[in-house]
Each structure stands twice: as C-alpha cells, then as structure tokens.
C-alpha cells in the first residue's frame, strides 16, 4: 500500500468518528451514489437468542399499521451466496479470512439489490443483524480491525442501531432452552477445547465484549434484552417513533 493510501484511510475511515447516518461509512461504492435517498435504515443487532427476529416482526407490524412501507433483510440470506456459505460451513474448510470475505460478498449483494433500492424508494429497511455481527465474529477470531473497517467501508451507516444486550448466563439458558448449541455459534473453530459448553461460554463472552467495544464507535442504542418481549418492543417503538416523527 502506498503512503497516501494510509493517510486517506485515516481521513475517510469509519474509525474517525465522522459517521453520518444514511451515508457510506468509508470508501463508497462510486457507481452507486446514495445522497438524498428518502428511506431509513434501522439495524437490530445482538448475539443469538436475544429475540431480534421477534422484535423485528412486531416492529414491522406496528410500522405498517402506521403507514410505513417496510422491507426486512437479514444476515446471509442472499440467493447468490447462501449455498456457498452453507457448503463452506458444513465442510468446515473456512479459514477466518475466507469466512469474513464470504459474508462481505453476501452483504454487498443484499446491500446493492435489496437495501439501496429500498432506501431509494423510501422504505423503512429493518435489518436483522448488520455488519457489526461480522465485525464482532471476525474481531474475536483475530482479524485485523483496521482492515475489517476498510472492508466494510462500503456499508451504509444505519439511521438507528439497536443493540439487544444480554449477559452470558441468560444467553446460555435461552440457547439450551431452545435449539441447543451448534458448532459455529460455539466458536469450536477457535479450538479452545472439545467441551462445547466451555467453548460456547468463552466464545459468546468474547463476542459480547466485541459488541460492547463497538457501542460508542458505531453509536449503538443499547437495550437490556433480559426484559420481556413487550417491554423491549415498547422501548423500540418509542425510539423509532421519536426518530421518524420528531
């Protein structure tokens, strides 16, 4: 990399604190100018089992009753990449870099084909997880943070980021009470040991720390996800309403 590039990266980089909602975080997609798009991007983030999906469904219902057009999107749902990601996960051949890049490709596909068109058309876009999930998972795996932030520089900064936060004990209780622990969510690829419970606990704790460390950098609105579904939803609606109808 040339010297100028590093200087540029500092000026344009998302770590500089100059985050503008609805704009690209860092280096843009030059062929997709998004200035003046009327839509709003709202991200709901958090680890497994914090109830993101439920909250988004309820939020969508409420927004639509109020007359807002809503588009939902999630992490790894693009038709282009889904089969490849599933294949890579099942064969356990992913190393951390290809892991990160596959998810970034998937995200780029959804950004260009779902999110940007929806923002252009004036929809409220609700995204179940956003780039922070990728940043947290990669961060835990030791991928260079500055590199990651450049990589996701083409992401659009959401207008609102809600972070549904739980402690690791609540998380473990919920996961065991529902579908159980799986290989990837337990960070077994990190090879901390053969015990899936210990690995899950250590991994999720690290993830929680990563999210916490991003809260200021990316302007998270942190919500206590140990509360009841209704309580969390009330809080979400209050904040969304204050933003959409100030």
């Amino acid at each position, binding site marked *: *990399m*040339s010297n100028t*590039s*590093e200087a*540029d*990266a500092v000026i344009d980089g998302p770590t500089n604190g100059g985050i503008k909602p609805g704009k690209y975080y*860092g*280096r*843009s*997609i*030059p*062929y997709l100018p998004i200035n003046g798009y009327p839509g709003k991007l709202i991200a709901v983030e958090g680890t497994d089992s914090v109830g993101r999906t439920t909250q988004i469904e309820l939020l969508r219902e409420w927004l639509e009753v109020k007359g807002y057009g809503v588009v939902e999107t999630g992490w790894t749902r693009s038709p*282009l*990449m889904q*089969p*490849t990601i599933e*294949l*890579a996960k099942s064969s356990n*051949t992913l*190393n951390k*870099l*290809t892991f990160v*890049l*596959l998810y*970034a*490709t998937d995200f*780029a*596909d959804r*950004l*260009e*084909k779902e999110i940007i068109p929806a923002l252009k058309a004036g929809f409220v876009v609700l995204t179940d997880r956003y780039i922070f999930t990728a940043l947290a998972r990669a961060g835990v795996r030791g991928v*260079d943070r*500055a*590199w990651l932030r*450049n*990589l996701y*520089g*083409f992401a659009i900064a959401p207008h609102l980021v809600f972070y549904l936060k739980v402690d690791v004990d609540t998380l473990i209780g919920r996961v065991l009470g529902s579908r159980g622990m799986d290989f990837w969510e337990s960070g077994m690829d990190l090879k901390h040991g053969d015990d899936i419970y210990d690995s899950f606990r250590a991994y999720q704790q690290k993830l929680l720390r990563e999210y916490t460390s991003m809260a200021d950098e990316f302007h998270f609105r942190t919500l206590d996800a140990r509360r009841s579904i209704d309580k969390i939803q009330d809080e979400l609606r209050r904040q969304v309403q204050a933003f959409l109808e100030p």
Partner: protein
Amino acid sequence: MLNNLTKSHEYPGKLLVVEGIDGSGKTTQLGLLAKWLAAEGHKVFVTEWNSSALVKAATKTGKKKNALTPMTFSLLHATDFADRLLYNIIPPLKAGMIVLADRYAYTAFARDATRGVDRQWVRELYSFAVRPDVTLYFRVPIDVSLDRLMARRVKLKFYEAGMDMGWSANPIESFRLFQGKVLDEYDRLVEEFGLNVVSAVGSITEQQRVVRDLVARHIHTTHVVESAETPDEQHV
C-alpha cells in the same frame, strides 16, 4: 492496516507472478517458465486466478444469471484469492518451493477499478496478500491480443469482455473498450507496485528469454543472464 503487499515476505520459497490482459500470452510464458525451473531442479507449484473450489459455485451462479455487480465480483475474487493464498500459496512458500501465480491481486486492482470500484478500497482489501518476488507484466496492444484470441477462435467471455458494463452489445467492441481501460489501470500499477514490464509483442522465444533473464536475478539457476537491461528498459 496490513501492508503485506508492500513488504517483502520472509518465506524460504519464491513467488513469481504473471499479469496481463487476455491474449497477452502470459499463460504460455508461465508454462515455459515452469518447465525451465523444474528442469533446473526446483519444486514448482502453479496456481491460477479464480480457481478455488470454494467460490466456484457462487461465481458460476452469478455469471450464469449475470447477477454479479462490480462489488460482488470484486469480493468473490478476493474470497477465492484468500482461499488459495492460505491453502495453495503460503504452504509451498513455507516449504521453500517456487509458486507461479497466473494473475494475482494486480488483476483485481486493474479490473475492479475499471468496473468502477474504489481503487483504494480494492488495494486495502488485498493488503493481506504476500508480496511477489517478481511480477512480470505482459504488456500488449488491444489489437494484438484480440488477433490472438480470434485466431484461437475463442468466444470472448462475458465478463472478460466487460459485457456486464453495458458499454457495447458487440463483444469485440466491448472487449476493446473494457480491456483498453484495464491496460490504463495496469500502467498505474507498474510504477505503484514495481511490476516488470515485458513487451508481449515479440516472439514467444524472445519473450521467454527476457522472462528467464529477469527470473534468474531472483532464483538460483544455471542460466547466464544475457542482457544487462533493467526491467524498466523493457517497456513497449
């Protein structure tokens, strides 16, 4: 930020790269280079651009449906590259082998920028790459490369001809426009990354002589360097 592409690697092996547009003859030259190095007693491993099994499915789906955008095209190739770097390039380098790469990150820099992706973003994207010991850039005028491709009666491929950009419905015209811009991008890279320019207009044997002269400066061989020209004097 990582700066591997600007910093020499410390592996015992050597990484040699050939670059150039389609029809520049780089693959032919790489093949001859591999033969020679093997005959000299070196262990040689060849790796090709966009060849990992991992992303093949996605690339195929995307290409078939013409569904790739410049960004997803760029990221898929970076994924393929990362996969090959970690499985096919770094291990042989650690084992002291000579790795010959048919296209490298520079292909991405040239093509992705031509497709309108941010130049600096792509450079930083590939900043995890290993810096090659030698990069040979086979520079060729568009007409020469088109003549070669036509003579082989190959059908110009959709993405190679830049048909996804919609600049021309005629594949030949599109190739001319697209690869013309790719050549401009390569010219930027020559200086930025110190690529060795080899004129790809001469005969195959002549080119190979130049190639072996250049390579012999970095790898122990019985080859006697015939010319004292520096790479910079090889410009077209």
